[in-house]
């Protein structure tokens, strides 16, 4: 039973690997855009460090924030892109007429995302440390929970976004791509949450990444970190992950009830 679960999930991962292997158009975005981001923000932070006299370590605060945010975005898109491959190839009928279960399918999407986002993370780390002197060791042991929390929330958003596309049809994939950009202003990626107006701060507290970026800035400024805030963020991320899986399963169930899965394609849904 467990072996069958692993094998069916592995089939989803293998499908993604086959697609990556044979396509420059799929391989390049894994690292090209994050590399561009690192170079662009690397020079911006270098310039800011030269002209500003605040004593703030821009490399660690800004470039580190960009790196972590790009990692989060890649995790989310790793899930949605693997899901969208089935939309684009109109594969739902073939896929869901097999013994594949939703937990197996989602596990496959998550593992695919781990692989693709890791490639992006490694490229970003190489560029940021080699060319701009970013030291992630500066964040100490907290780097691991930072990455883990962002990873879990990225997976949750990716699954929820996939559920939205399954629910609303292929054209709604355009709702998926801007999600990180919409979340970013609330998450306090580049500035403290206290900078935001009150209503935005309320939303920020409900977004797990804000805990990561607040603590990251505390470390850079040499202030004590708030483990409570990080724990709150981690708890939220887990709740969102559970909710996202529930949402996807519910949308899938609805698609089975209405027959949407059997006739899901770019042609028959506007």
């Amino acid at each position, binding site marked *: 039973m467990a072996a069958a679960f692993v094998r069916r999930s592995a089939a989803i991962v*293998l499908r993604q690997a086959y697609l990556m292997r044979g396509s420059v158009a799929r391989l390049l975005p894994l690292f090209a855009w994050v590399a561009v981001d690192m170079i662009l923000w690397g020079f911006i932070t270098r310039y800011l460090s030269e002209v500003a006299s605040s004593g703030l370590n821009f490399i660690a605060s800004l470039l580190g924030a960009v790196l972590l945010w790009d990692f989060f975005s890649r995790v989310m898109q790793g899930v949605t892109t693997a899901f969208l491959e089935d939309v684009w190839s109109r594969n739902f009928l*073939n896929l869901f*007429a*097999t013994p*594949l279960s939703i937990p197996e399918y989602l596990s496959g999407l998550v593992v695919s995302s781990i692989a693709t986002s890791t490639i992006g993370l490694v490229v970003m780390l190489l560029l940021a440390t080699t060319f701009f002197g970013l030291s992630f060791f500066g964040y100490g042991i907290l780097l691991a929970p930072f990455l883990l929390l962002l990873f879990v929330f990225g997976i949750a958003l990716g699954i929820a976004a996939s559920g939205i596309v399954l629910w609303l049809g292929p054209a709604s994939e355009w709702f998926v791509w801007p999600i990180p950009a919409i979340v970013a202003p609330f998450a306090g990626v580049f500035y403290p949450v206290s900078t935001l107006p009150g209503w935005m701060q309320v939303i920020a507290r409900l977004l797990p990444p804000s805990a990561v970026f607040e603590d990251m800035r505390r470390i850079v400024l040499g202030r004590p970190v708030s483990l409570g805030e990080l724990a709150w963020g981690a708890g939220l991320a887990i709740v969102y992950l559970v909710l996202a899986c529930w949402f996807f399963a519910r949308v899938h169930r609805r698609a089975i009830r209405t027959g949407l899965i*059997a006739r899901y394609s770019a042609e028959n849904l506007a």
Partner: protein
Amino acid sequence: MTPPPVLAVSDLRKHYGPVVAVDGLSFEVRRNEIVGLLGPNGAGKTTAINMILGVLEPTSGSITIESVDARAHRTGALAHTNFAAVYAPLPGNLTVIQNLRIFGMLYNVPDLSARIEQVIDQFELDRFRHTRCGVLSSGEQTRVGLAKALLNAPSLLLLDEPTASLDPSAARDIRQRIRQYAAQGDVGILWTSHNMYEVEEVCDRVMFLARGRVLLEGDPRQLPGEHGHKTLEDLFVAVAREPLAMEPH
């Protein structure tokens, strides 16, 4: 003791609000039997097949595949099942061998590499093994779809218009291969087609569907005569035009 049927469908219904797509469908597919599911467009054939495949939830009724309740134990039931349909080609961005490997894993096929070689050999796909499915001709894609459908050696094979869009020569070739598979073991096949010549040639038994119900059932070679028609096609046209006249009284 008579072995249980491969597929038993009982009082199956599917309503979309006030629209009734399948209305109390009951039938069986036995071992070593090819059953034709016939009817005009919109009769409920594909709806019935989708419900058997677990991609459409019935409003009510039961589906049993190899004595497994398909609604309660979907994974167990679908492990014995597979399908091919003209409207469900395999992903065109993967090669033949990649698609077969992925679907073989999804069906948890033991000794998968050897099984893939068997179906590649069976459907003469060797020279296309590294070709993306999207660039194959209709006939070649149909063969790949059938190779996928036989990967897990299903005891229930669902074929929804498997030869649609094929030229007569390719269609004959496909029919021959499916019959070879059917003759190999304890397999039941449910086959939909609008080609009555094909149905007469292949099917042991046919069921005429209209408005989601079985109107007629019997041997495709004898059924036309029993209802005052020369050919199966004439009977099909009569059923399609006047389904109420064929309703059992």
